[in-house]
């Protein structure tokens, strides 16, 4: 042995032992990570398999959809990914087409369940006063009073709509539903698209767009009437889907020189599915034995006939509850975050109070969801036993949509506040200083500088909070929302319903077709909603983090 080697260090075996140890350790780490990922995959595959039944399909079915759907979209994806412009156009196109499709479904379902007449009264009467305020603001060229006056006028409008309601309803109830859909859906959409085109091109084009959307909607309604179909759905589809998609596509097409083929993405997907379905029927191919059918989406629940069971009431209920919750909770959450980040001082009693609020919020985030259910129950049942007459006087019961929405709203409040705080904190201070230097007040700085910068972050938090609320079950069970519902809630003050409650009620059903069929399909819908929301949030976050 050479003199310079340390005699106590037995290089060979010791090194080998340590190397092996390191490899085993890394193997254990990778295995644990895989356990987590595999559990996730198993959950999706097992539930998806029972819901969709791919095992029953013929081999030719897979071939058919490979040719019509998988092959074209894969080739297209490879092409688009290499071209940055096309890929951004593709993203926009997907967002417009599928966003408006989902939007139209939500709008139709909500207006239909709340009754078009009621929506029309509240929307038309309710927007009169805000419109006056905006007009005054326009004429005077911006006044101190219009900012605070706007929310007050909205409230005033809604209250006057409530008061005028009994007088208007006999007059308006003779009007056909579809005309009211034109008023409450097509009207705002046409106006919005007109303004969008005006801001991008010219006032003339804007006017043409608005008229075109209105004309196309009325024409489709006319065709539907002559065909004997209820025109309401076609009115919503044409104005909410066709209008925006046409405007965005034309706008992109005229603006962009290259990468225009990025617009094709969603149509390739939809076309592939439609062509596949058509050929499947024409050729008589044995398809999937799926539980995820139109019957499931559009029917009411049936407790004894699984093949007839549908979750329409539960879907409408979930949309209404979560939508109402968003309206109630998001403004308060963002407001609280603005106060804590932008106003609250760090010293003095106010500073200590702000610290206490921060600690309180993080503790609230750790309170189990059942406890929020108990809070909702105490609040809407007898108002903590202090004023049992109060909920009754307001027409509130714990099982109503509004009570469920408020309960979930309190539950997600900490999530919204914390994520909004993070978004506000990431706005660089230089922007604030710059705004102050130009003479802007604190509120002007927040509204014109800080909030616009923080919007992507705040939006991400909101979407994640919505995703959490959609799957939340325990608080709704505690406040006594019916777990099985046969009819959709009639508006915000109707009895609540929610999709997860039906999964809860039927998970242990003794009829196997429910256990591994209907409930699996309902779970797939819930999981898909959650995945879409989470990936949208991640996309927004990545997009704005990179910029």
């Amino acid at each position: 042995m050479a003199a310079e080697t340390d005699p106590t260090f037995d290089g060979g075996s010791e090194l080998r032992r340590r190397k092996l140890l390191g490899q085993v350790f890394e193997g254990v780490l990778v295995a644990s990570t895989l356990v987590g990922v595999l559990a996730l995959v198993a959950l999706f595959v097992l539930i998806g398999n029972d819901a969709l039944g791919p095992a029953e399909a013929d081999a030719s079915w897979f071939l058919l959809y490979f040719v019509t759907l998988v092959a074209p979209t894969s080739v297209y994806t490879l092409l688009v990914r290499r071209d940055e412009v096309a890929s951004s156009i593709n993203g926009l196109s997907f967002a417009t087409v599928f966003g408006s499709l989902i939007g139209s479904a939500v709008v139709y379902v909500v207006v239909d369940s709340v009754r078009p007449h009621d929506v029309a009264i509240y929307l038309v009467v309710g927007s009169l006063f805000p419109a006056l305020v905006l007009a005054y603001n326009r004429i005077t060229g911006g006044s101190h009073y219009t900012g605070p006056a706007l929310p007050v006028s909205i409230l005033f409008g809604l209250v006057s709509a409530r008061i005028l309601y009994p007088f208007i309803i006999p007059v308006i109830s003779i009007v056909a539903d579809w005309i009211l859909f034109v008023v409450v859906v097509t009207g705002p959409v046409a106006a919005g698209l007109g303004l969008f085109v005006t801001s991008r091109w010219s006032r003339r084009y804007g006017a043409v767009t608005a008229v075109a959307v209105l004309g196309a909607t009325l024409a489709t309604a006319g065709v539907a009437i002559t065909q004997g179909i209820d025109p309401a759905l076609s009115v919503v589809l044409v104005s909410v889907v066709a209008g925006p998609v046409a405007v965005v596509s034309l706008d992109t097409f005229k603006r962009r020189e290259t990468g225009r083929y990025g617009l094709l993405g969603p149509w390739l997907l939809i076309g592939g599915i439609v062509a596949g379905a058509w050929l499947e029927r024409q050729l008589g191919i044995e398809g999937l034995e799926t539980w995820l059918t139109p019957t499931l989406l559009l029917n009411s629940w049936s407790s004894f006939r699984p093949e007839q069971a549908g979750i329409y009431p539960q879907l409408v209920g979930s949309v209404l509850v979560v939508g109402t919750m968003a309206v109630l909770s998001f403004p308060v959450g963002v407001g609280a975050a603005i106060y804590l980040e932008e106003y609250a001082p760090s010293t003095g009693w106010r500073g200590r109070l702000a610290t206490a609020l921060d600690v309180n919020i993080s503790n609230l985030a750790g309170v189990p969801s059942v406890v929020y259910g108990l809070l909702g129950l105490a609040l809407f049942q007898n108002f903590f036993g202090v004023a049992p007459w109060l909920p009754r006087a307001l027409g509130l019961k714990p099982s109503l949509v509004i009570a469920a929405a408020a309960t979930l709203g309190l539950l997600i409040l900490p999530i919204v506040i914390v994520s909004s705080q993070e978004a506000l904190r990431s706005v660089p201070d230089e922007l604030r200083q710059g705004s102050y230097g130009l003479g802007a007040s604190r509120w002007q700085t927040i509204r014109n500088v800080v909030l616009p910068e923080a919007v992507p972050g705040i939006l991400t938090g909101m979407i994640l909070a919505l995703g959490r609320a959609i799957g939340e079950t325990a608080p709704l069970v505690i406040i006594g929302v019916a777990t099985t519902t046969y009819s959709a809630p009639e508006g915000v003050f109707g009895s609540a319903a929610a999709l997860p409650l039906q999964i809860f009620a039927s998970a242990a059903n003794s009829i196997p077709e429910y256990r591994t069929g209907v409930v699996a399909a309902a779970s797939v819908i819930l999981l898909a909603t959650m995945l879409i929301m989470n990936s949208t949030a991640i996309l927004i976050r990545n997009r704005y983090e990179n910029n």
Partner: protein
Amino acid sequence: MSDREMTTLQRDGVAVTKERLYRLLLAGCAALTLAVTSGIIIALLGGTVSFFSEVSIVAYLTGTEWSPVINGKFGVLPLLSGTLVITVVSAVVALPIGLSIAVYLSEYATPKVRSVLKPALEILAAIPTVVYGYFALVYVTPFLDDVLPLDFGTFNALSAGVAVGLVIIPMVSSISEDAISSVPDSLRNAAYGLGSTKFDVSTKVVVPAATSGIVSSYVLALSRAIGETMIVVIAAGLSPKMPFFPDVLKNLTNSVQTITSGIVQVAGAENASGVLLNAMFALGMTLFVLTLTMNILAEAVRRRYREEYS
């Protein structure tokens, strides 16, 4: 500067009032969170006080039978035992796996692998727990029954506990990973300089340095497991039991009831009122105190034993 010029620099009265108004409104939003906490405490306290005016607190805390609807027995011990079983099972699943994932992600994984794994693991926490409950009941229980040489009931603690474990894995892994990646690189480099392998650095330097964060993530995750409701209600059944002692495995194969599923069961009872309704709030208070204590403990551990590197 003359008086006149001074006044032009001042905002006029309306503008100042407006600023104050907005500030007040926003402060009101923030104050609402205090109202929520007070609301929770008042709601729970009200029901609990009424409950203990009818049932003695000793009977509640030491009673070994929970049968509120049929016999009017309000002993909380069986529910605590069920909660303990579920929490222990979920801890066995989630704590080692969560920590391993955290070490892997921060010390071993390439940025590309990380960018795929992190969102994928976040999905584990985002899946609605009602779906986990359904998954545990319909898929995990038959699987365990096939694999393990035990006789599982339709509703059992093991499958529910495993599912709860899956839910809390991301909580352990993300908080631990934050703690691990905030260990400064100088410590790692010093250890490498002394001839350590990656294994030595991870187990003897990085993880010990991040202990406070890891312990805090464990406590938070367990608090979450205690408060988990739907999985337990669906997959663990609703039969309260005292622990089986010499025959420990029976605790896993049998149906149990936890504090949370006790609350849900009472809420689902036909026209629950009076002492039954109040029992729900007493259980809620028990749960609230338990989880709040653990959350505060987690925060205290994080603060007290945090190594300062700067």
